[in-house]
């Protein structure tokens, strides 16, 4: 899964060690005035959005590019409607997710093409927590559990899978998921807990022993 693309000569991008540029909301304001500032926003968020599209949909690379391009163009046109109380990144997540939903509506026969093994390399913290049963487990066992958890996650029904990807793979907080999916935080909490329970049940059926910590963020626990 190529996460990096080659840059043309002389073209600079924001590298991790370089001084961070202006904050997103400043760039948004500038981009409304002049489109050249939008390039920086695209470069800043491209990798994360690309990863999200792959994790959410498993689309092949060429389609991922299409989705991202469409999403960034939509974001550019709708810059004035950006709510500054939100994180720009979460607003982008929302647009990308809407583009994906539209794309699935158009092409209902879409099938996952990205192998799950690729995603094990960069699992979310919460997914690791879900699979980190005993400390005594070997790395291989841990990877195997991760693979099973990911399979269980992608077997979930759409509403659960959607929140599970954001929570367990993208490590988003409930409030952030609420902003992305435009659903109340309480609903998100219920969906996440239900998804967690389903994944845990699936993992429990496997031979590997598990000791799964329940993370409820202060919300009511789902009865097992």
């Amino acid at each position, binding site marked *: 899964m190529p996460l990096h693309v080659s840059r043309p000569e002389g073209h600079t991008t924001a590298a991790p060690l370089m001084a961070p540029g202006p904050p997103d909301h400043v760039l948004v304001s500038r981009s409304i005035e002049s*489109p050249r500032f939008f390039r920086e926003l695209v470069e800043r968020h491209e990798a994360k959005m690309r990863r999200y599209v792959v994790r959410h949909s498993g689309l092949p690379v*060429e389609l991922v590019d*299409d989705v991202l391009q469409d999403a*960034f*163009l939509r974001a550019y046109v709708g810059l004035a409607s950006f709510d500054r109380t939100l994180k720009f990144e979460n607003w982008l997540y929302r647009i990308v997710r809407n583009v994906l939903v539209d794309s699935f509506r158009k092409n209902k026969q879409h099938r996952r093409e990205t192998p799950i093994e690729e995603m094990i390399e960069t699992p979310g913290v919460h997914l690791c927590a879900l699979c980190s049963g005993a400390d005594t487990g070997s790395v291989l066992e841990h990877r195997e559990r991760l693979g099973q958890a990911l399979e269980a996650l992608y077997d979930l029904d759409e509403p659960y899978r959607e929140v599970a990807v954001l929570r367990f793979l993208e490590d988003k907080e409930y409030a952030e998921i609420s902003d992305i999916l435009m*659903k109340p935080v309480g609903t998100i909490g219920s969906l996440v807990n239900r998804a967690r329970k389903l994944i845990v049940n699936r993992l429990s059926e496997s031979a590997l022993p598990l000791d799964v910590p329940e993370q409820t963020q202060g919300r009511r626990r789902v009865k097992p």
Partner: protein
Amino acid sequence: MTKEHQKNGAPLSDRVMQEIERRSLAPVPRWRVLGHGALQWAVITLLGLAAGLSFGLLWVHVLDLYWTDVATSRSLFDGRHFLQTLLLWGFLCGLCLFALHRLYRRTRRGYRASLWALVLWVSLALGLVSWLGFQFAPLESLEQELGEAVPWYPSWDDAKGHFWQTPDEGRITGHLVRWSTATQFVLVDGKGGQWLVDASEAVFRPRHHWLNPSSDVSPGTRLRVRGEMVLRPLDDGEGVFRASTVYPWASGSGRHRRHSPAGNGHGRHDNMRGGKEN
């Protein structure tokens, strides 16, 4: 487009910028975003008002209805007609609330509100709007005019007139013409029949609104009278009716005040409770 880009191998940011340039895209102007938001809230407000008024009318009608009388009425028309009106306003109220909810959820922060908080706030708003509509705006006149303007509308006022014009079942309605004595008055019903109403043992509802009926209930006031028919009016003669309870025609306080110079506007609840008594 995709294949071409793949051939070029250009980074995403370049392709996005090229597309912006090629399609001459520009951000939607701020005023349009603000206008859209304002329009959204205007529609939400209108829907809220419509839901409040529908709920108010529904509430007035429910309070106005004498359920035991309707249940014992010999005419099937009454019950069916009342039910149609109630269902219509209930349906309209529900429809407005549904649309309101859907639209509110699409506002910038609307999705964040929990359903219970929404239910609480909408209930309070509905109660307030319907109370204001009942207290200050002539809800029943509005309904009456609607009945005249829309032919298929099952007007509550018509059904109510029909329902109360049943002397055989102990109900008459009409305008007070004059007081014959301190306890008897002449009433002309909707069909032109004259009634001498003996109110010597009658209770006037609301009681503290009409402390001294012979002076407080002025000629021209439309009344509903419950009691017993003693003599049916003949061709040009007067019928006689012994009243047990006398109510104003409308339960809305706005109209109540208009008909009664001595009105203090506090009689509504008494009137509603009084409706259940004999």
